[in-house]
């Protein structure tokens, strides 16, 4: 059963001269209880993709130019703003990268968590705050009853992220969009938050879209992964398949640039060059200027996703060779 079905999503941003696509042709399916990783470098479009799903991008600058996002037999991209508001927070919730700036500083954490309950279910402030205590306990905040009157700045980074997760889970959504939820946190805290997300998935069957640039995080937590580059899907499939048998030079580059103890002392390989700016995308495959596998065809025409294995697709014409050639 598919919970969320994204097909051909294209998000454009207006620039003074023309519209550029930050996300172009994104497709994936999400099942209940599945954790899907959306991975890529800065500027790869992963955050924009995530926000597009909830239509949280500024309407003056961004627009969904194409694609469908099917959720419970409805295309989210075609809902009215009022209908979309009911979906947000209630069916699909979202947590963000920097918990310090994403929590309103003048609200108590109790009120921040109670808010969606009051708006979506018309609960009284008292009942909602009672539930907030329960939610704080669920996300592992000690002495929850004593915390709801406190303000976000009185919590540590990891605790703030727990507060944000508690607020996101208040209405028991089916899907959680997590936009780099651990990037701003210490490594030890990072692991705790990921553990918490896995726990929540196991207990409640929550499906999670995890946006991250950290392929290590993907390896530890995700069931499936979509690798984005310059707004295009380079490769997607089960985490195991993609990370152990990458079929795209970009994925392979990301994996090779992970530090390992085996290669201690050796120079860390990296992908040369930088992602192209969105208004000056290269012709053909967007990765070809940085790709050592590139051939003429890659410079000429866009490369479409091709199934390489069951549930595993790559947008590389030379995917068969990617694994065979040494680093």
């Amino acid at each position: 059963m598919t919970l969320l079905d994204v097909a051909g999503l294209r998000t454009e941003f207006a620039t003074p001269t023309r519209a550029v696509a930050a996300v172009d042709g994104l497709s994936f399916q999400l099942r209940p209880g599945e954790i899907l990783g959306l991975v890529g470098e800065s500027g790869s479009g992963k955050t924009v993709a995530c926000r597009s799903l909830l239509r949280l991008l500024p309407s003056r600058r961004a627009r969904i130019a194409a694609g469908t996002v099917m959720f419970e037999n409805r295309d989210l991209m075609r809902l009215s703003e009022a209908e979309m508001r009911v979906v947000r927070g209630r069916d699909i919730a979202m947590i963000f990268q920097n918990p310090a700036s994403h929590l309103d500083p003048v609200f108590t954490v109790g009120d921040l968590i109670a808010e969606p309950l009051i708006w979506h279910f018309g609960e009284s402030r008292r009942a909602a705050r009672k539930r907030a205590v329960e939610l704080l306990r669920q996300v592992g905040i000690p002495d929850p009853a004593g915390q709801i009157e406190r303000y976000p700045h009185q919590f540590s980074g990891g605790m703030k992220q727990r507060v944000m997760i508690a607020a996101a889970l208040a209405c028991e959504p089916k899907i959680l969009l997590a936009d780099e939820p651990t990037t701003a946190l210490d490594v030890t805290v990072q692991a705790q938050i990921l553990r918490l997300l896995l726990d929540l998935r196991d207990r409640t069957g929550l499906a999670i879209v995890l946006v991250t640039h950290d392929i290590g995080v993907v390896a530890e937590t995700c069931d499936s992964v979509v690798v984005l580059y310059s707004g295009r899907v380079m490769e997607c499939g089960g985490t195991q398949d993609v990370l152990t048998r990458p079929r795209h030079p970009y994925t392979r580059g990301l994996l090779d640039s992970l530090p390992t103890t085996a290669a201690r002392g050796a120079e860390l390989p990296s992908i040369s060059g930088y992602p192209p700016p969105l208004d000056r995308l290269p012709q053909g495959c967007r990765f070809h200027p940085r790709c050592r596998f590139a051939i003429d065809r890659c410079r000429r025409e866009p490369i479409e996703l091709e199934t390489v294995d069951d549930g595993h697709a790559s947008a590389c014409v030379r995917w068969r060779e990617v694994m065979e050639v040494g680093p």
Partner: protein
Amino acid sequence: MHRFKFVLYRPIQLLPVLIGVSIVTFILVQLIPGDPARILLGAKATPEAIAEVREKFGLDQPLVLQYVHFMKNLLQGELGRSIIYRAPVLSVVEQRVAPTLFLLIYGVVLSVLLAVPLALAAAWRAGSSVDQAVRVFSTAGIGLPAFWLGIMLMLLFSIELRLFPVSGYGEGALSHLHHLFLPALTISIALAPVLVRNLRATLLAQLESDYVSAERAKGLPERAIYLGHVFRNSLIPTVNLLGVNVSWLIGGTVVIESVYSVPGLGQLMVSSIFGRDYLVVQAVTLMFAIGVILVNFFVDIVTVALDPRVEM
């Protein structure tokens, strides 16, 4: 509630400030050119008479001793006698406090009532026709000088339409409201635009904050986010700006009270300066200074109430 503890000990911290203010006002009078005794007695006084007066008022003593004497009197509420009113300075000044205080509060309330809805409407859709209209109002309000505006309002509402009295303070609260409407409006036409511009800019900046995205993701209606979150966060800088402007306004009442003949401290200040009634000038200066200190104290309390992150 420990964040509000400063309300108790702040007055103690303000003591040095008050002493500083007293020194400055004391020296101000000393700096006035001419000999007070000669001014008091007039140009034809004999040197003997002048010397006598100097001795009587302690003007022949060293400055430090004079200051000690001044402070001793000040603490007993003894501010000397007014030359013009031929009455104790304290009683002259006392009567003038209420009209000025009434006018200031009236003007500030009117300004806030005007500024908040205008700023909220302008920032709701930046660049909209409403926003443009508000911009025209604020630019015009900032550009018009208070004395000119006061006279124009008076001509229109008092003399042409006969809706409001030309001058005075009236008897009883309702009459005060009626009498001081035009002066308060003059204040607010000058003050509201400053607040509108600041609040509008802050609202627009706050609308770009990360927490706004987070609130949208929760499914809150845009209006609830705007009024419940964005507005509350935007008030913090605007309240501080209001505090600065009220401090400035305390001196600014001099012009408005003169135009509308409001029997307040500002008007008293002007007439005392022209009448060389230096002890009254000194007392009013002191009142203004204390007013500014109180306003800042009050702003601190409001800031702490609005912003849980602030510790005083």
